[in-house]
């Protein structure tokens, strides 16, 4: 017997183990060809079979070579638990099984000498979510009747743009006793309170990105929901820049400035203004980290849109300022406001942090009235690629931070002047309407969501370590990959349809939540409508504790 080598990687070191039933397998090969991670392979096993051919038992042994499917023992091509093999197997012969005894986090570091990179979301889930300890507990019944979700009209819209304090409105009384405008106000767009979060063309496959854009256009033009989609950092196809659909897009600029060259060049040809500009300073899933697009995903069209060669694309963690970050952000605000001649609102996205309130206060006091929104992204957000340590251990939960910002505005009598938009794990349980509604009652004007959109499209990843391989360029469902065979797995029309349907369902559900509290417009800051079943949550958020 060979000496055992304990250091060799075996499936029981890995996060997922493949359960394979040779007796059901017809060796069609579907699973092996479908596994984008090459985590399973066809092998030949030596088998011994004992048999007897005579009337009385006369055992003989026969050895034969049997083709089987086996798990690859490698920390590179390891099984992600995506379940695609199971999906394609006609005979239920194979499936991944979670390995609670995995040594993967240790083994990978030991073998690679480098930090672990991953995509998706945080994988350290321990307690019940804060939002699930909150209920809509103030029900209108007698003196203030509930509304009828089917019959009444509801104003489900949220502002994107800088809102002036009432005493600063340039309104004067005209000769007929009517107000007239005597000056200009910053641009404000009233949009659907759920923005499709910023996912770049690059992080997403072109099919996926197009599907989202298609859903956005459909929601606007056919369903009457003014949903906006944020481009993410990485530019926008020129065809879209020059089309009338640009008005549904919020263009993002982040520290890498990827894609802005093209956007700038397309400006003279734009027939519509974009919905807005979002300056990304930080991201909730990996605060303090810059963007990361691994070379595997920098396909030809990405090189063209971004104007870069095939290489790892890193956005620095900071916008490079001349003197200070505030100054550079201020400059960016000015230049983007000016670029679109002050017709397009410009907002900022930051990662939630213990310091968010100070940042927000600084912006609220901005004397130029150019900050058109504060997008606050919490720890539970998603990302295309990040270092695992950032993903799991850095960041700040969104719920209390959003509330802190709102209350900071209230303390100054400036609520609503810089619209607050919140994200980071909203809709994690699949129910975005409830999460969005609670965040709105806590003070958000609206929410944004990216990860959930991917899940609508068919992403199989989850918070318990399933898949989350978005960084590899091998997304098994064609969402976060640029590999043509994988991308073709995704049917963009079906994706668009799913997104549209989800939004329609969510719209009904939001109304179902507004009706019982008797509100026909969004109850921004109506924390009296909420109760908490947890004392600490109630205290922190300043809402009623109930049990």
């Amino acid at each position, binding site marked *: 017997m060979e000496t055992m080598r304990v250091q060799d990687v075996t499936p029981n070191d890995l996060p997922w183990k493949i359960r394979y039933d040779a007796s059901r397998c017809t060796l069609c090969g579907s699973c092996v060809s479908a596994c984008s991670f090459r985590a399973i392979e066809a092998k030949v096993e030596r088998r011994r079979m004992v048999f007897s051919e005579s009337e009385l038992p006369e055992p003989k042994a026969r050895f034969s070579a049997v083709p089987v499917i086996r798990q690859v023992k490698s920390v590179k091509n390891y099984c992600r638990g995506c379940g695609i093999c199971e999906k394609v197997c006609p005979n239920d012969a194979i499936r991944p099984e979670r390995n609670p005894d995995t040594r993967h986090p240790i083994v990978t570091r030991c073998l690679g000498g480098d930090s672990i990179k991953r995509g998706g979301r945080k994988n350290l889930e321990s307690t019940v979510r804060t939002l699930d300890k909150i209920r809509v507990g103030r029900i209108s019944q007698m*003196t203030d009747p509930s509304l009828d979700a089917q019959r009444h*009209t509801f104003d489900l819209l949220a502002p994107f743009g800088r*809102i002036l304090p009432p*005493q600063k409105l340039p*309104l004067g009384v005209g000769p007929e006793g009517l*107000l007239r405008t005597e000056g200009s106000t910053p641009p404000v767009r009233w949009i659907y309170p759920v923005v499709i979060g910023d996912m770049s063309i690059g992080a997403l496959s072109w099919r996926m990105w197009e599907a989202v854009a298609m859903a956005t256009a459909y929601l606007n033009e056919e369903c009457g929901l003014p949903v906006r989609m944020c481009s993410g950092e990485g530019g926008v196809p020129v065809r879209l820049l020059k089309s009338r659909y640009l008005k549904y897009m919020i263009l993002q600029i982040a520290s890498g400035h990827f894609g802005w060259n093209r956007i700038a060049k397309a400006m003279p040809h734009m027939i519509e203004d974009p919905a807005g500009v979002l300056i990304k300073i930080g991201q909730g899933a990996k605060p303090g980290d810059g963007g990361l697009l691994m070379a595997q995903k920098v396909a030809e069209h990405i090189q063209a849109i971004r104007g870069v060669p095939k290489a790892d694309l890193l956005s620095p963690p900071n916008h490079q300022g001349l003197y200070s970050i505030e100054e550079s952000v201020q400059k960016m605000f000015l230049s983007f406001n000016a670029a679109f001649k002050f017709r397009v609102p410009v907002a900022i996205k930051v990662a939630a942090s213990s310091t968010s309130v100070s940042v927000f206060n600084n912006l609220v006091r901005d004397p130029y009235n150019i900050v058109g929104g504060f997008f606050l992204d919490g720890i539970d957000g998603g990302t295309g690629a990040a270092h695992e340590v950032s993903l799991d251990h850095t960041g700040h939960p969104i719920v209390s931070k959003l509330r802190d910002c709102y209350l900071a505005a209230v303390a100054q009598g400036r609520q609503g002047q810089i619209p607050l938009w919140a994200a980071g794990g909203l809709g994690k349980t699949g129910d975005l309407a409830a999460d969005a509604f609670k965040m709105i009652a806590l003070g958000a004007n609206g929410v944004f969501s990216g990860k959930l959109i991917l899940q609508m499209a068919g992403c199989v990843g989850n918070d318990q370590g399933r898949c989350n391989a978005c960084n590899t360029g091998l997304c098994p469902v064609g969402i976060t990959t640029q590999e043509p065979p994988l991308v073709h797995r995704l049917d963009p029309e079906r994706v668009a349809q799913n997104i549209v349907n989800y939004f329609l369902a969510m719209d009904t559900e939001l109304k179902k939540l507004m009706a019982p509290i008797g509100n026909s417009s969004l109850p921004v800051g*109506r924390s*009296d409508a909420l109760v908490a079943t947890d004392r600490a949550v109630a205290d922190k958020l300043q809402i009623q504790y109930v049990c």
Partner: protein
Amino acid sequence: MCRIGAIKSLDFVHPSMALQLMQSQQKGHDNSGFAMVMHDLGGIFENYKKLPTLSMAATDEGVRLAEDILHEAGFQRVLQWVPETNPQPGLDINAMPNYVFETFDYPKHLRNGEKKEQEDLLLDMRLKLREALEPNEEGFVYSFWPDVVTLKEIGDPRDIGTYFNLWQPDDKFTARVITAQCRQNTNYDIVRYAAHPFHLQGYTALANGENTFYLKNVEFQRKLHRGYIGFESDSQCFLYTLHYVHHELGWPLRYYKHVVTPLPFEEIEQREDREQLKAIRQSLAHLEINGPNTIIGVLPDHSMFTCCDAKKLRPVVIGRDEKTVVISSEVCGINEVLPERDWETDIYPNEREIVAIGNDLEVQRWKQ
């Protein structure tokens, strides 16, 4: 639910008319209190229209404290009227020891001063008095304003009327505008300050209904003006928004409606004045009122108006004859005080309008 009513007349009318107006609606409330604000005063106050009158209910100590504070500030009393009370046994009233209606002359340096300066001082004085009397509940200061008196008390409105001898008309205590409310005490402890009508710098408002955006309103109003305090009742929010829109921002009254019950965005987009309406909706989003309610308001020029929520969940009726216009939660109240009027001219205001009654009793209806 509260019941509210208002009378505006070319002649001076006595509060007995307001009591009658409210009495017939008593099934609609729980008889837990009665409050009224009178504007454009007649009788003993008629000759002092330009001078502020203090309306308060207080203990002896409270009266002393208040008078000291006013004298110290240079105010000089020119008139005092103490209503004769009728404390029969068995009356359901939670009376205070003293009810004070005193008219003062301004401190010397302000007698010919700017109107704004005088107005600011009157408000500051009222706030100061209120603060001084608050700690031991020494008294409740309801209004301190020229040509306005306020009376509020806890108890059965009928008994309150008896206690103050208000069932007997006379020509001493009269006004051309009287707003009144009978209380339904639901959400709040029985607090005198929680009874509308509320008054601030010549503006009076009273409401029937709920304001489900109360918290949003309060959080915003607290920072808008030093006079926006108390918030014992959600109806105070209606007054403060009225004061803010009309007095502070200087916008015409019709925009009050656009602030409290803004048009849906879809409708705003169809309108020529969408730019202004959107700006209003944006910047004053936290003053929106949601929930069923009707508001009656009086402006400093004594004109009166009413409007209701955007779904007309809580309506009012307006009845009138040549000399009087009456607004009431229920039409039975109007039948009581204006039995001879032409019913066909009654107005049931639409959910999208403000009905304004000028000093010549001309009724204007502004569609939002």
